[in-house]
């Protein structure tokens, strides 16, 4: 429930991947309105439960940051709950929960997303709360100090206290040399310690113009009432300049990069990342199907090979996040006790090479499409799933309608396309390998 304020590059991702094959019967009516200040509002009416999900997507994330203030987007996301003009410190949450609502938020490389879940009786209040913080956020030095501690604790939980988190940070830092995906969404600890009030103000001005946001409302509402509320509460908020365009493109990688982490751990970890295009690129659907074939379920190629047959790894997972800029297609394996990470790595490459020489079977391709369709239904079965998915399509693919044509996009992918994707991207030159090597005890200090 109140797991609020997370940083993540994986959440939005997983969805759209599988949003895949919407059957023709699975379109639903979405109404949209562009407010005069540039904020776009999407509404899907559904009275199954007396509740509403509101998701607000701001196109600002760690991608828009600079060295020295990494993690600022995520920190700012926390500050969005710490008081504004009408609702002072603590009032946002207190008021919302007292009206039966709850909320959360997450930050990724590309986005900062705010989520509200509430009974329809709280609808007016939610718009009031959201409008107030977008327009009138306060910057209280005391709140900044204590929230810094919260974020540091979150980083210790997810990075220092998690070998996977720690190694993944190193993988991305090594894979990117120019582009801003090189630093973690939560930020480096030293930057968390050093943000200033000015940095926060600047970030608010940069990222939080209404014109930089898309709002999605799904549930026990009518489009008419939502548009009226939006016109009344949100439209008067002035637009200002959106974030500067991120012009940096990561140069082509010219050779394998390897990074090692040595620390106290019970088992090693292997992570391999390949640069792949952004979500809006035409390659997206083929890569998503490849991900399913390689990684989805116990019949997937890598589970069968690494976990089941060769019994080299305890687990294998990965895939790619939906992203605005070229991202990483990742594989993460935990070798079993006594197994060298190199053995897992070798088997992984053999499976990737097989994709380049043999076509996948018709049956595998059909399975991947079926999995995508079932996952789509699951996503559509909750109001929050629909709100998140509509927003993700709107933001990453440029148009929520693409949700309804995803089936067609998947069915157009051929076995030959999959082979050429593998040949193009799963190559040595394009990969970064990160390995965690356990040390048996903490080194003396």
């Amino acid at each position, binding site marked *: 429930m109140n797991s609020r304020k997370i940083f993540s590059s994986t959440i939005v991702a997983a969805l759209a991947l599988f949003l895949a094959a919407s059957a023709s019967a699975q379109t639903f009516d979405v109404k949209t309105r562009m407010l005069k200040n540039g904020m776009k509002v999407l509404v899907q009416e559904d009275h199954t*439960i007396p509740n509403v999900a509101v998701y607000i997507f701001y196109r600002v994330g760690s991608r828009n940051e600079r060295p020295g203030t990494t993690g600022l987007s995520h920190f700012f996301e926390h500050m969005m709950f710490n008081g504004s003009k009408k609702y002072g410190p603590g009032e946002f949450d207190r008021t919302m929960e007292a009206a039966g609502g709850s909320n959360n938020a997450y930050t990724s490389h590309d986005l900062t997303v705010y989520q509200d879940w509430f009974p329809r009786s709280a609808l007016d209040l939610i718009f009031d709360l959201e409008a107030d913080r977008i327009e009138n956020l306060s910057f209280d030095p005391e709140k900044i100090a204590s929230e810094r501690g919260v974020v540091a604790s979150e980083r210790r939980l997810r990075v220092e206290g998690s070998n996977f988190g720690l190694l993944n940070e190193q993988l991305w830092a090594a894979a990117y040399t120019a582009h801003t995906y090189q630093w973690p969404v939560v930020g480096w600890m030293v930057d968390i310690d050093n943000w200033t009030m000015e940095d926060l103000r600047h970030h608010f001005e940069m990222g939080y113009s209404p014109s930089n946001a898309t709002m999605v409302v799904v549930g026990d509402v009518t489009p008419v009432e939502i548009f009226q509320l939006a016109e009344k509460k949100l439209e008067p908020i002035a637009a200002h300049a959106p974030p500067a365009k991120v012009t940096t493109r990561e140069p082509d990688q010219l050779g394998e990069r390897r990074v090692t982490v040595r620390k106290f751990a019970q*088992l090693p970890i292997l992570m391999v990342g390949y640069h792949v295009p952004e979500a809006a690129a035409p390659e997206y659907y083929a890569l998503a199907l490849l991900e399913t074939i390689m990684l989805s379920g116990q019949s997937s190629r890598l589970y069968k090979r690494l976990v089941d047959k060769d019994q080299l790894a305890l687990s294998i997972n990965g895939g790619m996040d939906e992203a605005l800029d070229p991202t990483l297609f990742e594989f993460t394996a935990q070798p079993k006790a006594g197994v060298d990470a190199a053995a897992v790595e070798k088997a992984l490459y053999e499976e990737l090479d097989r994709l380049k020489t043999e076509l996948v079977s018709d049956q595998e391709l059909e399975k991947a499409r079926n999995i995508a369709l079932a996952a789509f239904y699951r996503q559509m079965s909750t109001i929050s799933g629909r709100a998140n998915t509509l927003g993700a399509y709107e933001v990453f693919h440029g148009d929520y309608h693409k949700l309804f044509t995803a089936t067609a996009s998947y069915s157009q992918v051929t076995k030959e396309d999959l082979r050429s994707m593998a040949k193009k991207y799963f190559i040595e030159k394009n990969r970064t390998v990160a390995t965690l090597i356990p040390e048996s005890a903490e080194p003396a200090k």
Partner: protein
Amino acid sequence: MKRLLQILLFITAALSMAGTAGAQAAGTLKMPAYKKTRLKNGMTLLLMERHSVPLIGFQVIVRAGSAGDPEHKEGAAFMAASLLRKGTKTRNAEQFAAELDFIGGTFSSFANADSSEIAAEFVAKDAAKGLDLLSEALLHPAFPQDEFNKLLKQRIDGLKAAKDQAQGVIGAYYNAYLFGRHPYARPTTGDENSLAAITRDDAQKFYQAYYTPANTILAVAGDFSTADMEKMVAQKFEGWAARPAPAISVPEPAPVTGKRLLLIDKPDSTQTYFRIGNIGITRTNPDRLYIEVVNTLFGGRFTSMINSELRIKSGLTYGASSFFDRRKVRGPFAIATFTKNATTIQAIDKTLEVLRSLHEKSVTAEDLQSAKNYILGQFPPTVETSQQLAGLMAELEFYGLDDREINDMTAKINAMTLADAKRIIQQYYPQENLVFVLIGKASEIGDAVKKYASKMEVRSINDPGFGSYAASEGPYH
């Protein structure tokens, strides 16, 4: 990531909310209609039609869990449940996985302290195939030796990996220390010692003893016609021969008296993770709704007293919560959080202070109304999907509860008074008798935490197991 946190960290809501559903105006919550039947062999069948999305959710509960594990064979129930899909009479593990994945189905099987369960979901058009897979796993598992060996090795390594992340294992240490020789002390997935001792026969024996029709509840919700589904289920399950199952005796655990502390030394820790609490309540405790209201205020939501003090006001932690894990007999109650090594004492002191303040100041009328609104307002989305509704039906049946759990909820919650809250606090929130379990860097925090308890124990995270739970070895505490 978010979901991980929800499950590991903030179990409160999910655990304590019964769930309700259905299209209804904001007002009284009402259980949607469903049909309950009993097959001739004694199996219970629950069917709820819903046609919003073309999916069908299945929930199986077998009335036997890890509390029935033989001594020193902790994990047997879990192994049995995990092996259901790993080879059956007509399919080997690989075939099962291939057929399941081909139709985009999900299937997970696991054991809890009191039950063994399967949750599965299929696209409506694949209902027959899905039911075929489900019934095959439940009725005809073969427990192949090679699959057992593979799984066992994975569990043993998985346990090693789990100990790399304090957050994932603190619950096992806490339960072991809190419950002592009671069956709830045992780790459901086993430990390094028990997994070294478990054999394929232990898993199969557990299955043969307890997986009987009379012990089994099958709940189905989703896009089907009740008559058709009933017929399909009958065809698959009627041939399952009735047989008696032994009873698993799980006595009511006695709360711990006094204060005692267990410190698990994890030398690479930058934060201390801790739980403080005692024995809590059963799923059917008559005060359960009132306890849920009070716990919402104390540690069950973002603005709860505990999270306000430890996170919102002080920034000591990313999150702090309290929960009652409600079981057949009294399960654990805990306050849970974490903080950096240097603020360990500050955070524990603060936690105890909030607990004291709860007793001294109780809650206000405004708080009470807020918690009531919150529980009722957050309820409908917890039973929105077919899978959630199947889970709800099965859960109510398992605990001997009925529709009143949902239908009476609104009125009961609204009737709660400040005097009720006061009584709940006194009766269910321990103050003098507390168990403390910490995972952290002993060389930094070990001396300072001695002050919390008259009895303190230190273990290394590298020591096998989570404690000592064999009843035959005498009293523990």
